[in-house]
C-alpha cells in the first residue's frame, strides 16, 4: 500500500512527487504513457511568465509570480536550461496602451518585480525587429524561457532518486474508494494508496468522475506552433506578447531557451488528444505573428506542431471561475490538481509546495522529513557548451563523447547513452530527443534518427525494429527486415 498515488507524470504530477520526496512517504507516480511529460508538458509555449496577467484573487495570480522567482534555484539544482530573457506586451494604439497600463497595475498588486512601461523609442531600441506601429509596451524583466520537457524529466528523475516509485505504461481505468484507501485499476495491475493526487492534465475530470460526482469539466483547447531555425534565433530577445484579449494571451513570438524562435499558439476547442495542426490555424498564427514581427522568415521554419491546454469550463463550475482547481475534493483523501493551464508551468514550484505543505501535511499528522533528500541531480554533459579543455578532458575520460550523432545540434553518443541510462531513462527516439535534443535541429533527425535507433537498440538490448518513435507498440519506425537481410539470416 502506497501512502500517496499521483496520477499523471506531467510537470504537475512529477513536481508534486519531488516535493513529496522531502518526506518519508511511500509515493507512486503513475502515467499511461511510456515517458514522463509526454502530453501538455511536451507541447506548450515554454514560457516562465512574470505574473502580471491573472487577478490576485485567483490561484493563478497567487502562484504565478512566486513560482517565477523559484525558477533560478530549481533549474540550477536540476540542471535545466532556463533564461530570464524578459517579456514585452506590445501596444499598437491608445486602447492597447490602456490595457498595458492595466496589466502594469495588476502586476504591482501581484508583486511582480521590475515592471516598467516603455515608450515607443525604448521598445524599438530594445527590439529592433518589431513592427514600427508598436507605440509602447509593458516590460517585465523577470519573464523567462525554459525547457519544459527537460524540467519535467529532471524533476521526475530527482523524485525517483529520492525514493518515489515511477510506473509508466500504467493507464488508469478505474478508481474505488475502499474504507480508508483507494484502489486504482490500471492496464498493468492494481495500485492501492491512502491518498490520491489527480494531476492527469486534460483527463483530470475523467479521472475524478471514476471516484466522485463531477463538479468540474475540462476542455482541450488546441494551439498550433511554428519553430524557426537557430540561424534566425536572435530576431527577438524578449518574449513578445500582443495585448491580451478575452480569448487569451494571443500569438506570441518568443526565443526558446535553446536559441530558436517559437511562434504561437492559437486557441481552438477540440476533442481531447487532438494534436493535429491545420492549415487555416497555421496561417492564422503566421499572420498574427507578422503583425508584431514583420520580418519573420517563414522559409526558415523547421517544425510545426500543436499542443493543447486543459481549460476548466466556466459554466459548470461550482467552486472556481476559470482558475486552477487545487484542493481536496469532496471525496476525502482525493486531491485534484486540475484545470492546470497557463501559467501552470511557471506556477508549479509554488503550487507543488502549496499542495504538500498546505493540503497533504495536515492530512498526515505523523509525517517525517526524509533526511536523505537531495534536491540536486547529476548534471548532464552538454558537449557543445564545453570549452576546448573540457572537451579534450571529457573525450579522454569517455571516448563516446568524441562521436557526434546529431550534427545539427552537436549531440554526442556519450550524451545519448547517458540519457538512456539515467534513472528516468529514455526508451524511445522521441524521449531521447526531449532529453538531449538529438533530432531537434534543422534536419529534424534526417541524419541522426537511424543512429539514435541503433544506439537505443544496442543499449536496451533489443532488435532495431522494436525501437519505438513514441507510444508503446503503436509507433514502430521499422516494419521488419528487407528481403536481402532476411535471406542473409537464413544462409
Amino acid at each position, binding site marked *: 500500500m502506497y501512502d500517496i498515488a499521483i496520477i499523471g507524470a506531467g510537470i504537475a504530477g512529477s513536481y508534486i512527487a519531488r516535493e513529496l520526496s522531502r518526506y518519508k512517504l511511500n509515493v507512486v507516480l503513475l502515467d499511461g504513457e511510456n515517458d514522463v511529460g509526454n502530453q501538455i508538458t511536451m507541447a506548450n509555449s515554454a514560457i516562465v511568465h512574470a505574473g502580471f496577467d491573472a487577478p490576485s484573487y485567483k490561484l493563478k495570480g497567487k502562484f504565478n509570480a512566486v513560482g517565477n522567482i523559484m525558477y533560478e534555484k530549481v533549474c540550477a539544482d536540476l540542471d535545466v536550461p532556463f533564461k530570464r530573457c524578459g517579456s514585452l506586451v506590445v501596444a499598437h494604439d491608445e486602447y492597447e496602451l490602456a490595457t498595458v497600463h492595466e496589466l502594469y497595475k495588476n502586476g504591482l498588486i501581484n508583486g511582480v518585480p521590475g515592471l516598467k512601461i516603455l515608450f515607443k523609442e525604448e521598445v524599438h531600441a530594445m527590439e529592433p525587429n518589431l513592427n514600427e506601429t508598436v507605440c509602447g509596451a509593458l516590460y517585465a524583466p523577470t519573464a523567462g524561457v525554459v525547457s519544459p520537457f527537460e524540467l519535467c524529466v529532471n524533476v521526475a528523475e530527482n523524485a525517483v532518486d529520492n525514493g518515489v516509485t515511477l510506473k509508466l505504461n500504467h493507464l488508469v481505468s478505474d478508481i474505488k474508494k475502499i474504507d480508508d484507501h483507494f484502489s486504482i485499476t490500471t492496464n498493468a495491475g492494481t495500485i492501492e494508496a491512502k491518498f490520491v493526487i489527480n494531476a492527469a492534465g486534460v483527463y483530470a475530470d475523467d479521472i475524478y468522475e471514476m471516484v466522485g460526482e463531477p463538479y468540474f469539466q475540462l476542455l482541450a483547447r488546441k494551439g498550433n506552433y511554428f519553430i524557426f531555425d537557430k540561424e534566425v534565433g536572435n530576431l527577438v530577445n524578449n518574449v513578445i506578447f500582443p495585448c491580451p484579449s478575452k480569448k487569451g494571451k494571443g500569438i506570441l513570438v518568443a526565443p526558446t531557451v535553446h536559441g530558436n524562435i517559437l511562434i504561437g499558439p492559437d486557441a481552438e476547442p477540440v476533442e481531447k488528444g487532438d494534436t493535429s*495542426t491545420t492549415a487555416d490555424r497555421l496561417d492564422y498564427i503566421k499572420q498574427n505573428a507578422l503583425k508584431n514581427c514583420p520580418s519573420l522568415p517563414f522559409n526558415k521554419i523547421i517544425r510545426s506542431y500543436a499542443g493543447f491546454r486543459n481549460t476548466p469550463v466556466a459554466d459548470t463550475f461550482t467552486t472556481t471561475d476559470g482558475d486552477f482547481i487545487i484542493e481536496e475534493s469532496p471525496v476525502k483523501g482525493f486531491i485534484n490538481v486540475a484545470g492546470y493551464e497557463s501559467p501552470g508551468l511557471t506556477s508549479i514550484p509554488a503550487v507543488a509546495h502549496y499542495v504538500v505543505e498546505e493540503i497533504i501535511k495536515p492530512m498526515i499528522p505523523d509525517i517525517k522529513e526524509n533526511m536523505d533528500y537531495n534536491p540536486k541531480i547529476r548534471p548532464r554533459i552538454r558537449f557543445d557548451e564545453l570549452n576546448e579543455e573540457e572537451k579534450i578532458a571529457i573525450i579522454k575520460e569517455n571516448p563516446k563523447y568524441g562521436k557526434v550523432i546529431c550534427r545539427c545540434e552537436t549531440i554526442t553518443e556519450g550524451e545519448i547513452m547517458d540519457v538512456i541510462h539515467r534513472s528516468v531513462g529514455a526508451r524511445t527516439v522521441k524521449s531521447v530527443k526531449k532529453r538531449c535534443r538529438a533530432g531537434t535541429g534543422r534536419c529534424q533527425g534526417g541524419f541522426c534518427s537511424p543512429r539514435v535507433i541503433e544506439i537505443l537498440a544496442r543499449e536496451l538490448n533489443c532488435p532495431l525494429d522494436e525501437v519505438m518513435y513514441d507510444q508503446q507498440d503503436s509507433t*514502430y519506425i521499422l*516494419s521488419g527486415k528487407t528481403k*536481402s537481410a532476411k535471406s542473409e539470416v537464413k544462409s
Partner: protein
Amino acid sequence: MIYDVVILGGGPAGLAAAVEAKKESAENVLILERDRELGGILNQCIHNGFGLHTFNEELTGPEYAEHYINQVIELGIPYFLDTMVLDMVDQGDLKVIHVINEKEGYMAIQTKAVILTMGCRERPSGAIGIPGYRPSGVFTAGTVQRFVNMEGYMPGKEVVILGSGDIGLIMARRMTLEGAHVQAVCELMPYSNGLVRNIVQCLDDYDIPLKLSHTITFIHGKDRLEGVTVAKVDDHLKVIPGTEEFIPCDTLLLSVGLIPENEITRNAGVEMDSRTNGSVVGELRQTSMPGVFACGNVVHVHDLVDFVSEEAVLAGKGAAKYLKGQLDTNITFTTLNGDGISYVVPQKVSLKNVEEKVTFYMRVRQVFKDKVVNAYIGETLIATKKEKKLLPAEMVNFKIAKNILAQYPAGEIRFVIEEAKK
C-alpha cells in the same frame, strides 16, 4: 604538423578534390569524414546509373566511389573516419580545423588550404509544415534509403511519396522491389523535379502513378501514420477544394529538395549566395576566404555525380595553385542569372586562372521548350546554347572558351533564356 590541404568530407566531391590536389603536387593532404567509411552518400545509392559521363559505363554508387577511394589509397592520402568537424577558424595563412573523434579525441588541425565538401542534406518534413499529426512513419527519402540499403530494414508496407526528387523516385522502385506497395508519387509542381530517366526507370516501369500538381494536405494517424489526404493544386499552387482524396498508407517518404550543408562555411564567415544556399565561388571554386575552396553539393545541388567530380577537380587544382602562390585573385567577370535562370555557378571568374574554358552550371526556373540559353556581356551576345527542352531538374552546363572571354573587358556575364532565332 601543418597540412597543405584539409578536405572536409569524404564523399564524391572530397575524394576527387583530394586526388586532384595530390596529383597537382600538394604534399600533405588529409580527408576528414564524419561517417564510418569513405564514399559519402554514394554508399547508400546501390542502384546503377553513376559515371556515364566520367567512366562511360553505368556504375552503382559504391562502385563509383570505389574508383576514387582506390586512388586515395594508392596516392597514400590519409583520412580520419567517424570524425566530426566542429568549426574552422581563419588565421590568415593558416586555417585551424577543430575536430573530434573517439580515437584521437579533440584535435586542432592546422592547414594552409581547405576544401569544403560537406555535401547537402534533405529538406525535412518540418520545413514544409504539412498540416495534421506528427506520427511515426514520415521519413525523408534518403533516411529510408539508408535504412533499407545499409541497415537492412524496411520502414513500412504501404507507401506514398511526396516530391519527385531523384531520391524519391529511386526509393519508389527500391521499396517496390522490396515488396512494399508504392501508391503514388505526388509532386506540387506541374513538372517533375527528378531526371527523366528516373521517371521512366523507377515509376513508369513499375506502374507507379506520378501525380503532378498534387500535394498532401493532411497527415492522419496519431501514433503510426494511417494515411494522407492528397489534393490537386491550381496554377498558383493553391489547393483546389473538392479534389481531396484519402490514401491509406503507413509510410510517407519526402523528397522535397536538398539543402547544401554550410554551417561551418557560414560560421567561418565565408561569403554565401542565397540563390544556391552555397558559398560564392570562382572558376577554381575559390571562396571569398583566401585558401578556402568548395565544391560539389555544398556549393550547389547537382543532379549527376559526374559533375560533382568535375567540379572537385577544379577545386583540387585551385588549392594546389594557391599553395604555389599562383592563384590570381583579380576578378575579371561576375555572373548573373537573368530571365528564366535561377542561379549560375561560378559567380566569379578570374580569367588568368582559366586553362581552356569555363563551364558555367545553371538551373532554369521552369520547363522551357525550344529555347536557347544566351550569355551576354553588356549588350553583346557572346555565346549561345541550344536545348530542345530545359527542365529545372536537369542542370545546364554551358561552356565558354577562354579565347572568347578574353575578347571582352572585365564585367558581368548575364545568362538568359530567350527565343531561338529562326
